């Protein structure tokens, strides 16, 4: 009747092929024989998994299938992971219906790269299981991110899906130092794909600090976020990026905000003005004293010249972080600001007094003259 189907399956399907087949509790216990035959387990007899069924008729209640009978390494990985609770996370919660499991290279598989985010999103989305455990809703952020749109919109298989960073069976909390998403491991994790950037990163001050175990330095996700990663050259990221650096470099951020670069940048719609990494580099951030640093004195003409055509040695003496409030740091600027402020305060104070007195006197004259009707007091 069904060529290629095992005798054992044929026997079971005699009953279980009926689409409306239900057990005593009302659960549907039908099996689509065709799909099962094509699935990764299609070459197995039913009792390879339902091992307690030896003969027909079989008991109403049968034992729960144990995947770990065969998949021992995956089971042991899972038992050490955040998903170890098998009641909450049965294998089928990720791999889908037990009778239609396909290899992960098959488009029909729930763990095919293009399907992974949606599969994880079942729990890690809005109102998902993860929220009940106090975990952030990461799926929508991922979907809108550069990785998510490459994957779901463009169908790019190499775009990072959940597994690429978190692993699959052995997913660990980022607080676990073994986790690929633990802070110290993030550069290497991202570097699995972004090898060039990671190499650059480790040449810079931030990478060196992380390598030396100084965990206050930023890793990839501190600037790019983990799930809501945007195209860094896009307006959205440029607009919100300076406060990211500023969250650590507070004094530099405050002086940057006094400058035209920031004033233009803050208003939106104009994203070309220099943000931190336009001058300092994004990944290979080096101290000013380093001859390879773009803000090294020797490289300033080239660095400023990226935007300011015609920048010369005098032009690059401009201080992008000048502090006009501190006399010792920028004496000339300090006195210019002092002079301008005194001029402003002096002129306004004098004329406010002058004009207020005039107003009072004019009102007084007006009230005296109002009887005579003189309009030009």
């Amino acid at each position: 009747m069904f060529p290629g189907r095992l005798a054992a399956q044929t026997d079971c399907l005699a009953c279980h092929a009926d689409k409306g087949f239900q057990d005593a509790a009302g659960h549907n216990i039908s099996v689509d024989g065709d799909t099962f035959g094509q699935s990764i387990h299609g070459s197995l007899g039913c009792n390879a998994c339902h091992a307690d069924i030896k003969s027909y008729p079989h008991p109403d209640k049968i034992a729960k299938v144990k995947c770990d009978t065969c998949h021992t390494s995956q089971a042991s990985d899972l038992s050490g992971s955040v998903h170890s609770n098998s009641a909450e996370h049965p294998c089928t919660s990720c791999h889908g219906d037990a009778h239609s499991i396909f290899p992960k290279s098959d488009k029909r598989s729930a763990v095919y790269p293009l399907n992974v985010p949606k599969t994880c999103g079942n729990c890690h989305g809005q109102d998902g299981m993860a929220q009940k455990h106090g975990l952030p809703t990461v799926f929508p952020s991922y979907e809108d991110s550069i990785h998510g749109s490459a994957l779901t919109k463009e169908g790019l298989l190499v775009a990072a899906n959940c597994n690429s960073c978190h692993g699959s069976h052995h997913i660990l909390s980022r607080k676990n130092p073994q986790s690929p998403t633990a802070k110290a491991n993030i550069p290497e994790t991202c570097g699995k794909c972004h090898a060039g950037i990671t190499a650059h990163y480790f040449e810079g001050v931030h990478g060196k600090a992380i390598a030396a175990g100084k965990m206050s330095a930023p890793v990839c996700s501190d600037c790019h976020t983990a799930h809501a990663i945007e195209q860094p050259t896009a307006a959205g990221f440029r607009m919100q990026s300076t406060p990211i650096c500023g969250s650590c470099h507070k004094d530099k951020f405050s002086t940057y905000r006094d400058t035209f670069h920031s004033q233009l940048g803050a208003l939106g719609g104009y994203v070309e003005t220099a943000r931190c990494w336009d001058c300092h580099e994004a990944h290979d951030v080096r101290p000013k004293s380093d001859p390879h640093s773009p803000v090294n004195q020797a490289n300033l003409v080239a660095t400023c010249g990226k935007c300011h055509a015609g920048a010369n040695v005098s032009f690059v003496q401009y201080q992008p972080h000048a502090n006009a409030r501190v006399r010792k740091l920028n004496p000339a600027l300090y006195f210019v600001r002092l002079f301008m402020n005194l001029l402003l305060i002096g002129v306004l104070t004098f004329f406010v007094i002058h004009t207020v007195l005039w107003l009072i006197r004019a009102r007084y004259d007006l009230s005296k003259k109002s009887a005579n009707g003189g309009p030009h007091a």
Partner: protein
Amino acid sequence: MPEVQEAPAQSQVTKKEGRFFVRFTRAQRVMHAVLFSTFLGLAATGLPLRFSESIWARRLASDVGGFGAILFFHKLCAIVLTIAFLLHVKDIFTRGIMNREKGIFWGATSMVANWKDAKDLFAHFRYFLGLGPKPKFERYAYWEKFDYWAVFWGMMVIGFSGYAMWFAPFFAHFLPGWALNAVLVIHSEEGLLAILFIFSIHFVNTHLRPGSFPMDMVIFTGVESEEEFKHKRTVEYERLAAQGKLESRLGEKPASWLVNFGRVIGTTAIVIGLVLLVLTLTAYFGE
């Protein structure tokens, strides 16, 4: 500004009460209109920059299409105002130096301050405090001269520092590096001073004070009534009367459309200015 030369000498008006005298030529009134419209434009587009962190600045920026649009409009107004400034300087140069016209650089009708201005200022304060009579003013009172020179100095300072930022690499050929930092401080502080001064002191002194309220229409119509002339600029009136030149300054009663037009434009400008003043003060003290 020197004495008006080209005033129409019409003496059809027979009733002395109904006479009007020319104070500003059409060119001068146009210059004031160009000055205040570009100034409002520069203030409205400059303030969001100066207070770029404030909410209204961001709202305004996003409403007009972001900073790109603001910068474009700011530069456009700057160019128009620069042209107006240069035309004025050329006018002064031609009249004062080429044509050797009297009263440009010195004398009763000059914009240059003189000893009488110092005495007037002192006397005016005495009058405010009830210590003396109200001083009598010439063609331009000391506060009008101050307004003129404040704008003159302001345009040079703000203009120079603005162009230095606009063409920074070019200016760097002859300016030291720290000057590039300084021009932003100068531009924004001097701009702030100009905005605060014009929208409070100039508005009140010239337009909003009792006697002129709600505005002095002479800058829009060019003429003022004899009574007003006599009262506000007594010394000039008496000087002209003594010289027998009063007739040469006679003008026509302004057309009602011109008065209404001036009122609408002037009120709009004053309202915009006052709104900007409030925004400036809230942002300044909110910093």
